């Protein structure tokens, strides 16, 4: 959970317009996004972003369209230049890089997966997957071998010599993922990678990503507008709104302690039983005694849904929570039921529909 910081973003601002530097002063002086647009004709893209992304974590950046999430992810490999602020990768300031170093960073440290796949239509699937190696000057014979390996891994064995237009959307995005994996870079940037796919395929792809991640331990930055997707994938969740960060934390924590009406509104509709885990609501043991009336053991990382299924719906039970077999806490079913009700559930729901 607490790996070293891989990517750090510090007080990042991005303003679109003809004179961003002047507009930056206004923003730092307290002018709001709306006023900036109306009075100065500049669009505030990102405002004072501070995020630390840890190694081997999936950091999900979530927000509605226009919240600046795609702009933010493009700052990491400098497809977009910031107006002010720092972006550090492995402790090095990326913004100070010259053209050559930046190219090396893009080639070897980061690979990106795109919402619209962005495959090259005139190349075969295997050639597409090998693009990331090809740009480094690897010979075709060698990069195709790697490409084949990763295509096999994402479940596209046998399609190597097809062209992208012969594949379905889900398969095309698998090629996109294989392409990013072939580069063997430690960081993967995924820009709404699954948003263009239909729901069933999307679930498949999420599972694929989690399965790959179990093995590969990449540092993944994942952009999405879908809260369910965010909660499913995230080790750490960053919620953006209108270019600023509303809240960032472990998803469980955000769900239980939303610090903003915007987020409360957001989280009121989701299936909490499936997302929340035992560890978030248990009472830690802290050296105390195990209760006598415990009905059994549950794992610390079980979802509440699993637990409810086990209890058969009986709310009077309590369970011993274990981590790798060792008891670490107690779970009262009454607490579990309370956790299922969002703080503002009914009003928010009523307002929406």
């Amino acid at each position, binding site marked *: 959970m607490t790996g070293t910081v891989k990517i750090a973003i510090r007080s990042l601002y991005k303003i679109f317009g003809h004179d961003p530097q002047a507009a930056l002063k206004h923003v730092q002086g307290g002018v709001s996004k709306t006023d900036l647009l109306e009075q100065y004709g500049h669009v505030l893209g990102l405002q004072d972003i501070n995020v630390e992304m840890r190694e081997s974590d999936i950091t999900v950046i979530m927000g509605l369209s226009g919240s600046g999430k795609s702009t933010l992810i493009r700052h990491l*490999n400098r*497809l977009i230049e910031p107006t002010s602020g720092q972006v550090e990768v492995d402790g090095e300031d990326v913004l100070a890089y010259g053209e050559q170093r*930046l*190219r*090396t*960073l*893009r*080639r*070897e440290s*980061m*690979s*990106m997966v*795109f*919402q*619209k796949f*962005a*495959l*090259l*239509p*005139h190349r075969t699937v295997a050639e597409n997957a090998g*693009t*990331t190696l*090809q*740009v*480094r000057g690897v010979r075709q014979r060698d990069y195709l071998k790697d490409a084949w390996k990763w295509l096999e891994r994402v479940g596209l064995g046998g399609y190597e010599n097809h*062209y*992208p*237009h012969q594949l379905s959307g889900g398969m095309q995005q698998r090629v996109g993922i294989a392409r990013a994996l072939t*580069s063997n870079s430690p960081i993967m*940037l995924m820009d709404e990678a699954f948003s263009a796919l239909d729901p069933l395929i999307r679930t498949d792809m999420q599972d694929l990503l989690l399965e790959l991640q179990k093995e590969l331990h990449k540092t993944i930055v994942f952009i999405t507008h879908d809260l369910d997707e965010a909660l499913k994938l995230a080790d750490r969740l960053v919620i953006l709104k209108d270019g600023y960060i509303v809240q960032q934390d472990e998803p469980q924590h955000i769900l239980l302690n939303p610090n903003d009406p915007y987020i409360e509104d957001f989280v009121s509709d989701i299936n909490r039983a499936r997302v929340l885990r035992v560890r978030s609501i248990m009472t830690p043991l802290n050296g105390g005694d195990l209760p006598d009336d415990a009905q059994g053991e549950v794992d610390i990382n079980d979802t509440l849904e699993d637990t409810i299924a086990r209890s058969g719906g009986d709310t009077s039970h309590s369970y011993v929570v274990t981590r790798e077999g060792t008891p670490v806490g107690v779970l009262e079913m009454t607490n579990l039921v309370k956790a299922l009700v969002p703080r503002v559930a009914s009003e928010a729901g009523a307002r929406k529909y």
Partner: protein
Amino acid sequence: MATYDFLFDGLGLRDWCDAGKTGDAPQSMANLLAKGGAGKDTPWWEFPFPSLDALNEACARIVQSRDMTKAVEDGFLAIKDVLRFVLDPMTQPLSWILDFALLVFEAAPWWVMFPILMAVVYLATKSVRLIGFVTACIAFLAFIDHYGFAMQTLAIIFVCAFLCVLFGVPIGIAMSRSDRMQRMTIPVLDMLQTLPPFVYLIPLIFLFSVTEPKLYGIAIILYAIVPVIRLTDLGIRLVDRDVIEAADSFGMTDRQKLFGVQIPLALPNIMAGVNQTIMMSLAMVVIASLVSAPGLGVLVLRGIRNLELGVGLISGLGIVLLAIVLDRVTKAALDRVNAARKV
């Protein structure tokens, strides 16, 4: 006396005008005719536009229109030698290439040329039907003894279209990469495209010897290069921005991006431009027969000049056949490219 006397009198320029009067200014025929009826009042509906000639009548200091024409001519003749000194050696290779191509196409016997053409068609289109069609068309032309002329026309088109692509594609690429370059080039392209084809020939005749093949070569290239430039520019600008962004994100250099992404993705458009370029070279090669371009155009010209109706019509038919052949082959090649690149 003259209509606009009042203008110069009113402005107090009469003395200045009269000071320039020499009395023996060149007279136009219209002037001489007008002199016959001098003194007659001009009816109000014939009130002339204040043109150079009309003003000249009132004030001799104003030049006549034909002086302006003369000045343009003198100006061109004055820079002609310099232009020729620069352009002549630069364009000389074009003459050599055209001469060589004509020589090869004429010298190759028909039983060598036919298989070569068939092979070219096959490589470009992979279509057996099209080979049959092209062979039939050329065989028909040969059957009515127009084979030699057709080959000359074909030779010129091959050379000119090839050079158009050779220069046009890089110009198009340069345009697509710089908005300034595009802004500067587009007016030139517009001018080249709207100038009537005959007008190209006028300055060229003065610059180069009429016996030089490069004379018509340049005219054809200038006329036909426009579409390939435009469509290359358009094609590259239309390449999906997401794909370009992806290429950037993988750390491609500009060169890798150009040859690995932009040109391949723009190829359907570029090929459409090549098709247009070839068709326009064919149109121009006929007109260029006025300045000694050999080929079917010569026969058309003979038909017009000597009123030999049959000769003109048959050679016209030959040109249509050639046009259909060239169009079908390039379109089929384009379709093949498109089929492989469907997104």
